[in-house]
C-alpha cells in the first residue's frame, strides 16, 4: 500500500470549506511521443499550439450543441459546488464542477464572446497560455465524467462534456495522457485494454471452464469466436482475470448455461470499455466501438449482450446505435444492445433460474450504482430501470441486502473515484480522496446494518474499490461483482439440485 493518508470519515458527510490549491500538483503522466503518435496525435506540443487549441475549441463548440449551450448558460448559482466527490474529498475549489468548467469557459469567453473579447476582466476571460494548459491538464484529469453535477444543475450543464472536450484539445495540441492513450494503442492493435491476445484469451477461458467444472461438476462453457452463436457477449477485459471481475464472468457463463442460450466472446472485440470517450475523441470512440460491429457481423450472432461495465454501458446503450448502427442484422425482438443484468433479470422474472440464496449467507450486501449506468443509460423499459434491475438480480442471489443512504444512490450516486480515465497509480492520492463520499455512505450501512460487501456492475468501480478500500480499513474483497453473487447462488444441473 502506498503511503497515502485517506480522509478521516466522520459521523456523516460534511461539505468542507474550500482550501486553495490542495490538488494543484495532481496530474497523470504525460504521454511520451511514441504513445502520442501511436494514437495519431502530435508527439509533443505543436508550434503555435495556443492558436491550434483555440481554433480546435471553436470547431468543437460549433459542432456540439451541448458545448455551445453549456459554455453560455452557467450563471454561477453554486448548485453544483458541493456535488462533486473530488471536491468533497479534496476541498480544492477547482474541483467544484463550475470552477472546473470555468477553466475552459474562461478561454472560450476570451476568444469567442463579445464580453470576453472586450471586457475580459469583468467576465473572467483568460488568454490561452501554458499555465492555463497545465491547469487544464491537472484539473480535467480530476473529473471522472460521472455526471453527478449535471443532475443538480438547473440547466443540465454536464461537466463530463467539458472535460472530454478539454482532453480532446490537449491531445490535439500534443499534451495527451499516458494511461488513456496507452490503453487505446492496445485496444486498436489487439482488441482489448489489457493487450491480451486471442490465444491467451482462449487459454484463460479454458482454465475457467475447468475451475467451474471442479466447483460445480457442470460443463459450463466459456466460448470464444464461435460462429453462429446466438449471443455475442462484450465485456470489459478485466473480467478475464481480475478479482472480483472474473467471478462476474463466471456468473454470466452460468446464466447462459442455465438459460440454454448459445453465446460467444470475440477475440477481435474482447473489450467493452471505450477509452475513446474518456479522451473525448470521436474518432477513437467510433474506431473502438466499430470492432464490436465487425465481430457481430463476422460471427453472425443475433444479439449483443454487454457485461458489467459502467462507462462501457453508457457507450453501448446511448451511443452504439448512433456510431456503429444501424443494427438491422440483429434480432429486433431483443433490446440492442442488452445488458447482462437485463438478460438475467428477464430469466428471473420468468422463473427460469434456480437460486439458493443461502450460498451467500456469509454476506450482507449493498449495491453501488455505477455513475454512468445511473446517469447516462437505462435498463429495461422504464426510466430508472437501471436502479431496479441490478438490485433485483442481487436480491435474487442474497438474503441480506441493505441500500446506502438515498442521497448517495440512484441518480445521486457517488462515483467510485476512479472512472473516466483516472484509474492509474500516479493518481492514487486523488482516487483515495475522491472515493471518500462513497466510503462515508458505505461506513454508515456497515455500522447500522452490519453490511459486509458492496456489489457493483462496473469494471472500473471494482478495480478502484479493490485498491482504495484498504485505505479506509475495509478488506479489499468487500467489493463483489453482481454476477459473482449470482454465480454463487445459482443452481445448475443435477449435482446442485
Amino acid at each position, binding site marked *: 500500500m502506498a503511503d497515502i493518508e485517506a480522509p478521516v470519515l466522520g459521523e456523516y458527510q460534511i461539505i468542507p470549506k474550500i482550501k486553495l490549491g490542495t490538488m494543484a500538483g495532481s496530474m497523470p503522466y504525460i504521454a511520451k511521443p511514441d504513445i502520442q503518435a501511436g494514437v495519431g496525435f502530435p508527439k509533443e506540443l505543436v508550434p503555435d499550439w495556443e492558436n491550434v487549441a483555440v481554433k480546435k475549441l471553436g470547431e468543437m463548440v460549433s459542432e456540439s450543441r*451541448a458545448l455551445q449551450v453549456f459554455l*453560455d448558460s452557467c*450563471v454561477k448559482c453554486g*448548485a453544483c459546488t458541493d456535488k462533486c466527490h473530488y471536491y468533497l474529498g479534496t476541498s480544492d475549489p477547482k474541483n467544484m464542477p463550475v*470552477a472546473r468548467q470555468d477553466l475552459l469557459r474562461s478561454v472560450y469567453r476570451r476568444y469567442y464572446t463579445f464580453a470576453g473579447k472586450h471586457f475580459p476582466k469583468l467576465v473572467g476571460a483568460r488568454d490561452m497560455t501554458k499555465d492555463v494548459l497545465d491547469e487544464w491538464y491537472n484539473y480535467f484529469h480530476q473529473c471522472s465524467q460521472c455526471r453527478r453535477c449535471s443532475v443538480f*444543475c438547473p440547466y*443540465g450543464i*454536464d461537466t463530463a462534456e467539458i472535460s472530454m472536450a478539454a482532453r480532446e484539445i490537449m491531445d490535439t495540441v500534443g499534451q495527451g495522457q499516458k494511461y488513456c492513450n496507452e490503453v487505446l494503442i492496445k485496444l486498436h492493435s489487439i482488441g482489448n485494454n489489457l493487450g491480451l491476445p486471442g490465444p491467451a484469451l482462449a487459454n484463460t477461458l479454458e482454465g475457467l471452464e475447468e475451475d467451474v467444472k471442479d466447483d460445480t461438476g457442470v460443463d459450463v462453457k466459456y466460448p470464444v469466436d464461435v460462429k453462429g452463436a446466438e449471443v455475442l457477449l462484450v465485456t470489459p477485459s478485466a473480467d478475464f482475470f481480475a478479482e472480483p471481475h472474473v467471478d462476474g464472468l463466471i456468473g454470466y457463463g452460468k446464466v447462459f448455461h442455465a438459460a440454454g442460450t448459445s453465446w460467444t466472446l470475440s477475440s477481435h472485440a474482447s473489450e467493452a470499455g471505450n477509452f475513446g470517450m474518456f479522451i473525448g475523441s470521436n474518432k477513437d470512440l467510433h474506431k473502438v466501438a466499430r470492432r464490436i460491429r465487425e465481430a457481430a457481423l463476422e460471427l453472425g450472432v443475433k444479439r449483443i449482450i454487454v457485461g458489467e461495465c459502467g462507462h462501457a454501458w453508457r457507450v453501448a446503450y446511448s451511443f452504439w446505435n448512433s456510431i456503429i448502427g444501424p443494427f438491422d442484422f440483429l434480432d429486433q425482438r431483443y433490446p440492442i444492445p442488452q445488458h447482462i443484468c437485463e438478460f438475467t433479470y428477464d430469466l428471473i422474472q420468468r422463473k427460469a433460474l434456480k437460486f439458493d440464496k443461502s450460498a451467500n449467507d456469509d454476506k450482507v450486501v449493498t449495491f453501488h450504482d455505477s455513475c454512468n449506468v445511473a*446517469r447516462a443509460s437505462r435498463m429495461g423499459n422504464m426510466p*430508472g430501470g437501471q436502479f431496479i434491475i441490478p438490485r433485483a438480480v442481487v436480491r435474487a442471489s442474497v438474503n441480506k441486502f441493505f441500500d446506502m443512504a438515498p442521497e448517495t444512490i440512484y441518480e445521486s450516486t457517488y462515483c467510485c473515484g476512479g472512472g473516466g480515465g483516472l484509474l492509474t497509480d500516479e493518481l492514487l492520492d486523488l482516487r483515495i480522496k475522491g472515493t471518500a463520499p462513497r466510503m462515508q455512505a458505505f461506513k454508515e450501512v456497515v455500522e447500522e446494518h452490519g453490511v459486509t460487501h458492496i456489489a457493483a456492475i462496473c469494471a472500473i468501480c471494482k478495480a478502484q474499490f479493490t485498491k482504495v478500500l484498504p485505505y479506509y480499513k475495509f478488506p479489499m474483497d468487500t467489493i463483489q461483482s453482481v454476477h459473482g453473487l449470482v454465480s454463487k447462488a445459482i443452481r445448475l444441473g443435477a449435482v446442485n439440485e
Partner: protein
Amino acid sequence: MSAVTVIYALLFYVATAILVIGVARKIYIYARAPQPLKIPTTPAPTTRLGVAARMVREVTVFESLFKANKWTWLFGWIFHFCLFVELIWHLRYFTEPVLAFLPWMQWFINFTGYGMVLGLLGLWGRRFLVDRVRYISGPSDHLMLALLVAIGASGLAMKFLVHTDIVALKAFFIGLMTLNWQRMPADPLLLIHLTLVALLMIIFPVSKLLHAPGVFFSPTRNQVDNPREQRWVAGWTAKLDNTKAAGN
C-alpha cells in the same frame, strides 16, 4: 421634442433591436448546432411528451435546483416568479386597451417588487456568505445582481414613494411602437429605471442571461431517452457509414 425624449426613444429602439436580434441569433446558433450523441441525464423520460413535462418542471419550479440547494432554489424561484409577474404587469404600459387579465393582478403587484429585490438580495448574500459561491463569483456576477436590484428598487420607489406620470409614460411607449413619438416624462427615478432596463436588454444576448433560452436547448434535459428504440444521428454521427464493407 425634448432631448430626453429623443435620447430615450433612440435608446429603446437600439436596446430592443439588440435584444431581439441578439437573442434570435443565439437561438438560431443553438438550434443549428448538431447534437451528435444522446446525452440526456438519466433517468430521463422515454417519450417526447415526457420530455416536455420535464422541461415545464425545470422552467416553472426549477426541479434540478430544488434537488441541489433549497436556499438557492427559494431565493432564485421567488426572484424569477416575481420578475415574471412584473414583466406581465408592465404590459399595461404597452397595450391599449390593457389586456383583460391585467387588472386582476393589481393585488399581487403590491408584493412582487419586494419579492424580486428580496430574492436578489438572498442570492447576492450567498455570494458573500458561502465560501464556495464566493469563490466562483466574478465581477460580472455581482454587477448583474446590482443592476437587477437597482431596477427593482427604482421601480419600487416609483410605486411607493415618488409617483411618476404613468399616463405620459404609456403615451411615450405606445408612441414608440406606432412611430408617433410622444413626450417622455423626465422624472429622475423613471429615467434611472428605464436606463437600467435598457442596459439589461443590451447586455442580455452577450451575458449569462442566455441561460433563459439556453435551458430549452440543453441536451441533458431536452433529449428523449430512447437510443435503442430509435437511431439518433446528427453532425459527425450522421456522416458515419458503417455499412461500407471496407469500413471508413
